[in-house]
């Protein structure tokens, strides 16, 4: 049996006859001087390969972003922009939160593992931190010690205050 799609008549259904007639009508006429214009175009020397490559590599003006300078300047001034709008204490919130989370995770890890009875579990540097920073409470001492461990610090003299913790996370 012959495939009905093989015959163009298959696409001559009467429903679309007005459409086909419209499509077939030449609605536009070419300009009278088309040939002259083509000839004029051909008179121009054709671009050499080098020129073509140059054109290809040229910047596309459509991709220009008129706000780019502003964006770059804003990026350069990024820190002041962000910090000016925040209270000073907010700067320390992130490192403190990170330290607190790590402490909780560490303590949780320690308490979940097997532990011999009567063993005093403490952070390796906690003792030295306690001795060098006697004014801090025990929780803060633990945080500082943990942070020191993470950063591999040996000099704890900088950790005189909570504010100094921030430099560990720079």
């Amino acid at each position, binding site marked *: 049996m012959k495939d009905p*799609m093989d015959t*163009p008549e298959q*696409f001559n*259904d009467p*429903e*679309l006859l*007005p*459409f*086909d007639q*419209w*499509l*077939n009508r*030449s*609605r*536009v*006429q*070419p*300009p009278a001087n*088309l*040939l002259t*214009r*083509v000839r004029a*175009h*051909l008179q121009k020397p*054709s671009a050499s390969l080098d020129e073509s490559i140059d054109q290809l590599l040229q910047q596309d003006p*459509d*991709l220009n972003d008129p706000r780019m300078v502003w964006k770059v300047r804003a990026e350069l001034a990024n820190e002041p922009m962000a910090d000016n709008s925040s209270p000073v204490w907010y700067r320390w919130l992130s490192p403190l939160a990170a330290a607190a989370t790590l402490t909780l995770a560490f303590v949780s890890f320690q308490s979940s593992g097997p532990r011999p009875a009567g063993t005093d579990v403490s952070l390796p540097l906690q003792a030295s931190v306690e001795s060098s920073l006697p004014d801090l409470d025990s929780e803060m001492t633990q945080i500082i010690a943990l942070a020191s461990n993470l950063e591999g610090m040996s000099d704890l003299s900088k950790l005189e205050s909570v504010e100094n913790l921030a430099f560990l996370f720079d």
Partner: protein
Amino acid sequence: MEDNEKTDSDPSAQLMLQLRDGDEAAFDQIVERWQSPLINFFYRSLSSYEQSEDLTQMVFVRLYRAAPKYEHRARFSTYLFQIARRLLINEFRRSQRKPLDSWDPTELHAITSGQDHQRLTELEEAFEQALKKLPENHRTAILLLKQQELSYQEIANIMEASESAVKTWIFRARQFLKQELKDLV
């Protein structure tokens, strides 16, 4: 000589061979013969007379520059519409890349100026809108079949697809058009 024998049924291919051999007048005849089919093909695809005119001109420029290497391997119309379709696709890509805020209002005006300003009947308007909604390959296939009256094989060659794919595109296009125009036709 062999080329000449093969081009008996394809006079435009014969003209192209003459152009290749240095007969400048042959080019004039090619432009004369094909400018109207080309501009109408572009116009139905783009709905902009100015763009259609530019692309038609560009096809002839490409054709002229390709003439020194021309060989008669397929029908001339296949060769010509292959160039035309590539330019058309480039044009679509170019216009899609263009950010909206860089549109020049004079360009928008150009789309509805000149011959585009002819008053369309409601039916013609509906035809045009329905045609615009088709995917590029469906629209091109139906234009080549109905407007240019090319064979399926030729359309398949132009669109670098199989004949069955072309038939499917045309079938789907017509189904879509029937659905779109059912209340009007």
